[in-house]
């Protein structure tokens, strides 16, 4: 067969009613390479990918797959031409089983009927490949999976389609180093089998581990392309931002030494729930406490328990030394605790609401003075948050559904930040957010704790925890397995195993 490139896209234009997103992108994916695509939130990465796989149709521009011109009217057609994609927002149906999701529209059929056993077996193998075979079963409903587990199922789904071209849109956003390593193994195997991959990520360091080439997307244009050997993280950041890097890009937060007299702002004692067992820890004013663990270890479950989402079987929660009963998020918020959930789309946002309405969701009552919502004040503060968090949107009345993943995440954070909470529970808050914005958020959180508030910080990125938290608890299988004071990524890695 010919040696044409896997994908050649030329002069791709895409606009969503008036809002130009892709402004003439030229992009080439060579056969058998792993090609990184980087760019700020809202640069147009996902949109470009969705054009390549037929989700969107370009307004202008040409597309050829393995040398043959193509214009897809649906993802189905792209699939039939050997293109599979891991969607940033995932493409799973929560009400269906893992096996059904993995073989969605790619069914194993014998004599007109689904071969359930064959699919279950194949699923088992795929789950094994991505390393969660012993955590979840093929028959489990996807809605019962943790974020990371869902992410891996989505990846397994793409692998199952034995496609020639696989697009990975931020596949590691909610994965921690171990799973990422396992993913890389799988990816390299695919490459050796001659599959070409596109790899989108905000963890620039990873690019240098597995990618051959990297393209930088800025503001709807493909501004630069390097072989990874010829470039560096600062250079990439510079070209993403289109300016010399202002900040140094991994920033060590000065750990605050806590006043020993102080009463903990938040104290949990022997929490027991259906997923947790004897979880205890203290959070002092001015402190950022990290929770580190493998995926499925129970970090989210801990935050859920504190936030009143899961009923406690036993245990105590104290705020400012006072024991409190928290049965619902409403009560948690009333006690000055707020949560940035891990799944922005299903837990954080109301997708059809405008950016402004979402930003105000936690404090509607406060806005109403006494009955009518003060629209002007709402808009004011919304504008300010949008600016501060660098949310890329056509306006505060755009539906968040149409924001890019990272920008949606920023809205979730903004929504929780401006409430009068004393304690913030952050579950992977920087999930999908680009470096620059990530640092901005770090600074915001830092200022926040400086004012005598406290933060419980869950992240799948150990370096982030290491550089950011005053103290870190290690979570394993729903229990606290240890505590590390100011630590390093390597020590965390060792600890969570």
């Amino acid at each position, binding site marked *: 067969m010919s040696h044409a490139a896997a994908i050649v896209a030329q002069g791709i234009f895409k606009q*969503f009613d008036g809002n130009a997103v892709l402004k003439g992108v030229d992009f080439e994916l060579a056969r058998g390479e792993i090609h990184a695509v980087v760019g700020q939130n809202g640069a147009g990465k996902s949109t470009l990918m969705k054009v390549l796989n037929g989700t*969107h149709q370009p307004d202008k521009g040409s597309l050829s797959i393995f040398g043959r011109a193509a214009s897809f009217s649906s993802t189905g057609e792209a699939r039939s031409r050997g293109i599979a994609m891991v969607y940033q927002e995932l493409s799973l149906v929560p009400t269906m089983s893992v096996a059904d999701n993995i073989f969605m529209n790619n069914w194993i059929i014998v004599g007109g009927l689904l071969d359930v056993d064959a699919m279950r077996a194949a699923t088992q193998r795929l789950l094994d490949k991505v390393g969660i075979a012993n955590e979840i079963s093929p028959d489990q409903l996807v809605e019962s999976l943790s974020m990371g587990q869902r992410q891996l199922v989505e990846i397994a789904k793409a692998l199952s389609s034995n496609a020639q071209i696989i697009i990975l849109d931020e596949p590691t956003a909610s994965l921690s180093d171990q799973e990422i390593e396992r993913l890389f193994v799988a990816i390299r195997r695919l490459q050796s089998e001659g599959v070409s991959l596109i790899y989108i990520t905000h963890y620039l360091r990873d690019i240098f581990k597995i990618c051959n080439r990297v393209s930088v997307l800025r503001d709807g244009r493909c501004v630069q392309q390097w072989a990874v050997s010829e470039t560096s993280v600062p250079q990439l950041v510079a070209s993403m931002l289109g300016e010399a890097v202002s900040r140094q890009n991994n920033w060590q937060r000065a750990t605050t030494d806590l006043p020993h007299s102080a009463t903990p702002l938040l104290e949990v004692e022997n929490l027991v729930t259906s997923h947790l067992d004897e979880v205890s820890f203290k959070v002092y004013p001015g402190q950022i406490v990290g929770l580190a663990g493998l995926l499925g270890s129970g970090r989210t479950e801990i935050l859920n328990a504190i936030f009143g989402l899961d009923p406690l079987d036993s245990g105590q929660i104290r705020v400012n030394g006072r024991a409190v009963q928290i049965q*619902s998020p409403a009560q948690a918020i009333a006690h000055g605790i707020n*949560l940035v959930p891990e799944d922005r789309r*299903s837990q954080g946002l109301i997708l059809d609401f405008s950016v402004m*309405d979402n930003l105000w969701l936690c404090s509607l009552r406060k806005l109403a003075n006494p009955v009518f*919502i003060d629209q002007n004040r709402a808009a004011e503060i919304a504008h300010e948050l949008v600016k501060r968090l660098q949310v890329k949107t056509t306006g505060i009345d*755009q539906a968040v*559904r*149409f924001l890019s993943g990272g920008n949606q995440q920023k809205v979730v954070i903004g929504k929780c930040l401006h409430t009068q909470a004393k304690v913030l529970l952050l579950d992977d808050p920087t999930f999908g957010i680009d470096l620059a914005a990530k640092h901005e958020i770090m600074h915001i959180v830092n200022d926040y704790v400086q004012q005598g508030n406290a933060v419980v910080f869950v992240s799948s990125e150990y370096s982030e925890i290491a550089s950011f938290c005053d103290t870190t608890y290690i979570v394993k299988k729903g229990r606290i397995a240890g505590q590390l004071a100011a630590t390093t990524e390597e020590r965390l890695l060792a600890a969570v195993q």
Partner: protein
Amino acid sequence: MDIAIKRATFPFAIGQWQRYIIYFVFVGLFVFFSIFLHDKGFLQAGNLMNIARQTAMISIMAVGMTFVLSAAEIDLSFGAVVALSAVTVALLLPYGMIVAVPAALLVGALCGLINGLFVSKVGIPSFLVTLGMTGIITGITRWVTDLQTIPVDNETFAFIFGSGDIGPISVLFIWMMVIAAGGHVLLRKTSFGKEVLASGGNKISAMYSGINVNRVKLYVLVLNSTLAALAGILYAGRLQSARYTLGESDLMMVIAAVIIGGTSLFGGKGTVIGALIGALIMGMVNNGLVLMGLNVDQQLILRGIIIIFAVTMTMGTLRKKKKS
């Protein structure tokens, strides 16, 4: 659901277009009938006021239903509530309006409360609760009245609640406008309204944001039943009688009006004004078809065609816009 996806490739257009087009369709139909029926009295002030009168109760119920659907719930029992409250008010009128009217509203609220408690506390789909309640309430109404019509023999009541005219304006028209305005403000300008839409738009996110979703669902069901009770009172005042069959046939009318108006059956999207327009469209069409002198079969067919046509106009235009 269907909407969702169009949006996915096509953002707020829907919202705006729909809000815009429904008026367009309304005016279009109005013009159509005015021309087509110019010699058949469609445009007579009297007839227009008839349309308003005949639409008033539907509109009032549609306001309540807008909240229910926005919260991604449904209420099938409001028709039964209409009858029960009408009967209640008619039976209690001898003891004075001050007793009868509040009592009837209370009865309505109570039915809503029962619906709401089963939905929010037990977690039964509102479809089933309200279906069951429909039977219970209707049974009670039939039993209380022994299937007899209860006459309303109270001039003042009849005047205020349906039969009266202030100048050329029917009190029903005023009731309709007041309720619609109130509903619009409640849904758009208060935190409650936002909480309703949030609960319907994404129950989980709403809960994570500290909204007591179950309480919201309880409230909308109570609100809807209470408005149904008001509609019942107005029926009683209008017909100067109450019978167990009142409201029976309003269910589909009302839900259709709300959805034509642009509210989503799946929650998260609601507009009171749209519902009002939807109700007026339905009322206008019914009136127009009768004026045309069509027989029942022809009316059924034409009404169906007009509904589909009107909505196709709306959505169709959206699609064209999308293509472009």
